[in-house]
């Protein structure tokens, strides 16, 4: 069975990436300190070369894990990955007994493995569920027993048995709990998906309502202009809602979404009908900062139209070229802006500011009496 890594699951794993590196830093710090420990201290290294090798192996696994979560999260799903990690986690306990002088394991409060084994158990539980998490939680701490033996400690007395047992129980519980949480999060996420599908159905239903609104608008245009206006506004609202609640079938979803939201927000107070068209391919996608700046600038330009142009319609056009660069325009057939009044107004300044922030530029082409076009380039 193939499954993908859902966004929430991925954020959990990303959190563990940080924990992995924190553990590694701790381990590295410990090895450096052990190097300088005085003879006779229980924190002195017996096998410094082995300690450095352990650090290296953990760093390599950390790098592999971080890179997988970042670039190809499905790779983390491979059971061999989990097996490798758990074996390494187990070995770290053994290594703690091996690299240090005899007596270290129970005499020192510092341990080479730090919290790395726990992180390994948790990420196994997240990916493979509570049962596998529990098994991993039981098996990994058994390495402690082997480590203690290697370290020359006796493991038979009551306190020590209790200590081993408690880490096994604690790790097993942690594995089960985090596995269940991850499971629950996955369920919630699929529920969100299902809701999205339901919205699609709602869209179909609302097509009927749009038909009716258009009809009301038509029938009442002369007999009851106020009712026709109400219908027209509802039509605009519903249309805006429909386009914002359904994902576009192709192109740059985030940019289009941001533009639609900004335009709707800006146009609603003026009852302005804005036609929005976004032309984009699947790839490449537009940087979030660029999408935000373009959407914000378009929103301000639409507000400008609503305030000054004395029209009821405007056209927004956005095109993303093959390099992910954006051209956008906001055009109305209104009064036009006199060349002298073109710059220095609050709105044009803030549009210009947004474009400058992303290294872009803007231009206003306007003929008094024949409309205005605000043009935006992301570069």
């Amino acid at each position, binding site marked *: 069975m193939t499954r993908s890594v859902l966004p929430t699951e991925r954020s959990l794993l990303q959190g563990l990436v940080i924990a992995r590196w924190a553990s590694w830093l701790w381990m590295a710090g410990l090895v450096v300190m052990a190097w300088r420990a005085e003879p006779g201290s229980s924190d002195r290294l017996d096998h410094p070369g082995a300690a450095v090798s352990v650090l290296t192996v953990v760093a390599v696994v950390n790098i592999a894990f971080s890179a997988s979560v970042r670039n190809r999260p499905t790779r983390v799903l491979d059971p061999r990955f989990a097996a490798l990690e758990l074996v390494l986690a187990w070995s770290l306990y053994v290594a703690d007994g091996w690299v240090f002088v005899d007596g270290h394991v129970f005499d020192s409060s510092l341990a080479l493995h730090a919290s790395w084994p726990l992180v390994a158990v948790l990420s196994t539980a997240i990916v493979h569920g509570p049962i596998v998490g529990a098994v991993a939680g039981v098996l990994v701490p058994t390495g402690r027993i082997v480590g203690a033996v290697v370290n020359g400690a006796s493991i038979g007395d009551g306190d020590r048995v209790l200590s081993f047992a408690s880490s096994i129980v604690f790790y097993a519980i942690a594995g089960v709990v985090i596995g269940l949480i991850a499971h629950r999060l996955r369920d919630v996420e699929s529920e969100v998906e299902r809701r999205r599908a339901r919205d699609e159905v709602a869209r179909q239903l609302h097509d009927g309502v749009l038909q009716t609104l258009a009809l009301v608008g*038509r029938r009442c245009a002369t007999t009851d202009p106020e009712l026709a206006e109400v219908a027209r506004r509802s039509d605009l609202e519903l249309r805006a809602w429909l386009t914002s609640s359904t994902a576009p079938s192709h192109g740059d979803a985030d940019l289009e979404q941001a533009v639609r939201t900004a335009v709707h927000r800006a146009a609603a107070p003026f009852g302005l009908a804005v036609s929005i068209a976004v*032309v984009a391919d699947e790839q490449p996608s537009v940087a979030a900062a660029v999408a935000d700046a373009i959407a914000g600038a378009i929103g301000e330009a639409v507000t400008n139209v609503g305030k000054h142009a004395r029209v009821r319609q405007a056209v927004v056009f956005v095109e993303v070229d093959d390099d992910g660069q954006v051209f956008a325009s906001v*055009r109305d057939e209104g009064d036009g802006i006199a060349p002298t009044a073109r710059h220095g107004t609050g709105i044009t300044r803030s549009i210009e500011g947004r474009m400058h922030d992303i290294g872009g530029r803007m231009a206003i082409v306007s003929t008094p009496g024949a*409309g205005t076009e605000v043009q935006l380039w992301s570069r």
Partner: protein
Amino acid sequence: MEQVIRVVLADDHALMRSGIRAELGDGFEVVGEADDAEGAIDVIVARRPDLVVCDLHMPRGGGLAVVQAAATVAPIVILTVSEAERDLLDAVAAGAAGYLLKSTPPDELRTALRRAAGGEPVFSPQLAALVLGEFRRLAKQSGSSPLTDRERGVLQLVARGHSYGAIGSELGISPKTAENHVRNILGKLQLTRRADLVRYAVDHGID
């Protein structure tokens, strides 16, 4: 005095038909009505109107079927509630003269229909953007753009909301030339769609 334009209305909502009929006023004469695609095709062939106004979603085939069967008889303007639809592009590729939103105000509706009857493509910014996107896809597939740079420029200006007049003055050509570019673009869209169909037929062993 302008010539009265003979119109066929096709919409499955009788109320919508009567609403449009009332708004068209003196310059238009409704010579036939239909409430489904087959009825519309029959009435268009029988009455040979100057213009057809046709709903996109109707029983028994919808606007697309009407365009496929009768676009050569009279210019067909598609009426729709939503502009961002693939079937709309299909209808235009099949030869529709353009489309109008059902919420278009009466005076605009009349102007647009008069222009469509005169053979001018009724091309909204939304539709131009859809066509622009379609050509980009085609260019990606085949590695070369079916459109000339000039045609692409004209199409983008239409998508930005420019009229043929404004496009003319922007590019230093006459409005008529701008309009002809749009007509050529539509022709190319129809051709590529037809080529797609032929390729599909060959690939699937249909004669």
